[in-house]
């Protein structure tokens, strides 16, 4: 191992005289603080240090491991909770106590635990990178053991049985020995065979997303919003209810207490599809805002690599990154310590390239082993001052196809999820149309379009109302306003904290829209037949729509509401005569 010595220390960055390659991992000082080479200048290299540098002196020894920042991949990842560089937080607690001090090392996987390995490949098989040679049950997930991407050969030995992640389960004629665990550098995407079109929706259980702004499996979405608009609650709802098989939740520079909430809440929740605890499919990365800034920068890559590993097994993975702005700020902070010339607002000029590189790792793929898997990424963005023109939001918008804009006006009136339906968009709407009409309802898309156009028309009408008051509107428009109100208050609002309303299946979402439009049809018809607007907008049965979201047996209720509506309108007609 090559060694050198520290020349300068300033904050999370140190300069050392050391022979190194870019992105080599180095150990700094007596406490062996973990660092990464991020700039080379003559015989000096600049190191970002993943731990607090208080007390570090010039002259301290630096040793170069010669390897890039890598993480351990193997059974035991699920249900784990890591810091930004894959150190399990419970292990850090056991070593250091309640506060995270420095110089602790903890491997990402448990190296003592034995796993039941069932070989599916046999002696003599020709295998190459990605090939599945056996399985391990990791909770309810069938964890596939794969040949690491860069290895290949003929199997000379393979056996089922009970192994730790370090023990050899399979030998190849190339001399390679395969263990349950492999290592992979986080900044390098894991190889795949080819990218597939994202034509299957990621069902989120959130009405506004599934209907108006759907996300595809393998798609990328950004949720920008000022503070207090509900980014984290939305991210958490998605992590809880979306129909991915594996969830990687990256808490990047966020609040400690919020991570605690996730940690206490997730074990209590059950997956509505499998009935098993939601935590069993989840990996959490928690690098809170006061943990070292360099580890924050690494945390999103760490999360993405974990996701790619499960994708390689053929799973659909969703990555929640909360928040990518904190990651960008970490880049800015390091960049300014490097005294690089800044781009916009002090962010480094390579900000948008890094953002694009990161989001491009998402997608639906055909893997090396011929399975199909996907990674969907949902990145929260915290624009400074709520200003969407700032560099991180803009850099993100250039690469994502789904834009869910959180609106502080809506949040203030407690309209949640506070997604602005006029500014948000999804470019997956067309490609997913086929799936929805085949799997939910034939007329899914026309219904969605109708709801959307009513909401858009409302916006225009409200402008007029602002000027002249609602009584001055033509009668038909007054009815439109009422339909839009139903769509907003009853349909779009969803209570993340209510046991039933927190998850709305596509069928429910569809029936809900359909009933609201039914009211619209009846109302316009009645108007045409000469009924009074005040009667039409004040019929009682439609107010019961508010109860639908809280109702498990929603179909029965919706049917009875439709019946009541019809009879009320009939009565209106006969009263007139």
């Amino acid at each position: 191992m090559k060694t050198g010595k520290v020349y300068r220390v300033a904050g999370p960055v140190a300069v050392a005289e050391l022979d190194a390659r870019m992105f080599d991992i180095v150990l700094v000082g007596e406490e062996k603080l973990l660092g990464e080479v991020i700039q080379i200048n003559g015989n000096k290299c600049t190191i970002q240090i993943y731990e607090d540098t208080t007390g570090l002196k010039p002259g301290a020894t630096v040793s170069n491991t010669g390897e890039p920042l890598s993480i351990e991949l193997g059974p035991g990842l699920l249900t784990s909770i890591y810091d930004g560089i894959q150190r399990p937080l419970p292990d850090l607690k056991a070593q250091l106590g309640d506060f995270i001090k420095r110089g602790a090392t903890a491997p990402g996987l448990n190296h003592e635990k034995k796993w039941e390995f069932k070989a599916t490949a046999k002696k003599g098989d020709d295998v190459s990178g990605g090939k599945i040679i056996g399985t391990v049950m990791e909770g309810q997930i069938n964890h596939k053991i794969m040949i690491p991407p860069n290895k290949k050969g003929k199997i000379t030995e393979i056996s089922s049985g009970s192994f730790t992640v370090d023990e050899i389960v399979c030998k190849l004629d190339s001399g390679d020995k395969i263990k349950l665990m492999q290592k992979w550098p986080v900044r390098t995407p894991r190889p795949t065979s080819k990218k597939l079109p994202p034509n299957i929706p990621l069902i989120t259980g959130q009405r506004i997303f599934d209907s108006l702004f759907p996300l595809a499996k393998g798609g990328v979405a950004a949720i920008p919003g000022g503070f207090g608009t509900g980014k984290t609650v939305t991210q958490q709802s998605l992590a809880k209810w979306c129909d991915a098989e594996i969830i990687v939740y990256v808490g990047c520079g966020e609040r400690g207490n919020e991570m605690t909430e996730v940690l206490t809440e997730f074990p209590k929740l059950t997956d509505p599809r499998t009935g098993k605890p939601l935590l069993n499919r989840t990996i959490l990365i928690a690098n809170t805002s006061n943990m070292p800034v360099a580890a924050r920068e690494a945390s999103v890559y760490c999360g993405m690599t974990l996701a790619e590993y499960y994708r390689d097994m053929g799973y659909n993975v969703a990555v929640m990154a909360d928040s990518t702005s904190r990651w960008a700020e970490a880049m800015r902070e390091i960049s300014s310590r490097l005294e690089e010339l800044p781009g916009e607002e002090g962010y480094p000029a390579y900000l948008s390239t890094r953002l694009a590189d990161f989001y491009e790792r998402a997608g639906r793929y055909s893997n090396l082993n011929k399975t199909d898997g996907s990674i969907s990424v949902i990145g929260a963005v915290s624009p400074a001052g709520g200003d969407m023109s700032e560099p991180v939001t803009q850099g993100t918008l250039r690469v994502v196809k789904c834009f869910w804009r959180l609106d502080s006006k809506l949040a203030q009136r407690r309209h949640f999820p506070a997604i602005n339906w006029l500014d948000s968009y999804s470019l997956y709407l067309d490609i997913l149309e086929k799936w929805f009409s085949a799997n939910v309802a034939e007329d899914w898309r026309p219904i969605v379009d109708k709801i959307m156009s009513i909401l858009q028309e409302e916006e225009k009408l409200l402008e007029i109302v602002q000027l002249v008051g609602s009584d001055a509107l033509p009668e038909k428009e007054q009815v439109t306003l009422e339909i839009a109100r139903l769509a907003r208050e009853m349909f779009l609002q969803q209570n993340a904290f209510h046991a039933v309303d927190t998850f709305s299946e596509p069928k429910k979402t569809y029936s809900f829209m359909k009933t609201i439009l039914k009211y619209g049809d009846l109302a316009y018809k009645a108007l045409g037949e000469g009924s009074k607007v005040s009667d039409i907008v004040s019929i009682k049965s439609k107010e019961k729509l508010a109860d639908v979201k809280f109702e498990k047996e929603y179909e029965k209720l919706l049917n009875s509401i439709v019946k009541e509506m019809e009879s009320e309108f009939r009565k209106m007609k006969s009263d007139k005569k």
Partner: protein
Amino acid sequence: MKEYKTISRVAGPLVFVKKTEPVAYSDMVKVLMPNGEEKNAQVLDTSEETVVVQVFEGTAGIDLNSRIKFLNQPIKLPVSEELLGRILSGSGKPIDSGPELVADKMMDITGAAINPYSRGNPEDFIQTGVSTIDAMNTLVRGQKLPIFSASGLPHNEIALQIARQAKVVGKESNFAIVFAAMGITNEEAQRFIQDFEQTGALERSSVFLNLASDPAVERLLTPQLALTAAEYLAFEKDMHVLVILTDMTNYCESLREIGSAREEIPGRRGYPGYMYTTLANIYERAGMIKGKKGSITQLPILTMIGDDITHPIPDLTGYITEGQIVLDRELHRRNIYPPIDVLPSLSRLMNLGIGDKKTREDHKQVSDQLYAFYAEGKDLRGLVAIVGEESLSERDRKLLKFASEFENKFVKQSKSEDRNISKTLDIGWKLLSDISESELGRISPELRKKYYGRR
């Protein structure tokens, strides 16, 4: 310990020292001036050739003949339970004519991050007796909830009222207050101290004072010291500590001053790019720890420059803290105390601390309903200005009336009025009862039946 006489440059609050033995980053430094005076400083940047130190008491009087002593250890605070009842300077020296601090132990003031896995869930409702906070933006133990104020608004009165009245109903509590003043005026500081004295809270308080006339750089130390004291009291002495930090805006200005003296590339509005991390290191030192009895609840106060909530200081703060209490000049002008504008205010931990057995079963829904009506009513004011009240519908007129009743009966209360949560919610119901029952869409039918129109 060696002393160096190799100062090469003095600029603003920074002193540059040439050729020294290896000096550790962030260590404590003393600057000895020819007249015998001593100043405290800290290492900001260290290399084999130059060491940069920031001087907390300002660099006035330092010359090339001054000597530098590296103490070879980080800055520490002597802590013991005797910190309570004491008034200290912004750099932790007694200024109340009491004895020197006795050290039970010395604690590093930087403070490490609490392992998220060790954190306890904050869920104990703190009743502040202020309706707008208790009902609408509930404070819980272990939370950090800043007051976003602006010059001329009564943030200090509100902070004091909270400090006086805050309690966890039905729980015996071993409480303490840690008060850290950064660059506030002597008059304001006196108000706090007098109030603490009158209510007897001073005995349970530890006061750190950096006044407007004190050196600006010293302010960078004050919250660190205060929070170190708070951590000791909370996590080693089992106390429930309320930390009041005022005024964070002054703190950030000092941060900017250091940044520009170091010729760093500035971020937004000249504030350093690492301000988010620095603020997070302060605010995140709140919370509870599993298995420990104590807690730290933070009530930072900041004045929004030009009443602008998108200014970097409130903006970054809002992204770190668990909500914010926003004061409004318009309400203040109309003589409504406390002038808390509930619409932009928020408590992120509210849902953990309320509901049946904690406050009352109807709490969440009443609060949501009040929010929705007040937002709508306030919007209508704009419309009325254009079209006049006559052209409003019956419902809109009611909402308009609701908004002003809400401000006058719910928001407004006296500086000494300690409303319990039940009373607060009852006032809420009374206001809601002026609107027809079927309009209360945010409240479930069962609760409506139980509370609506009840006398």
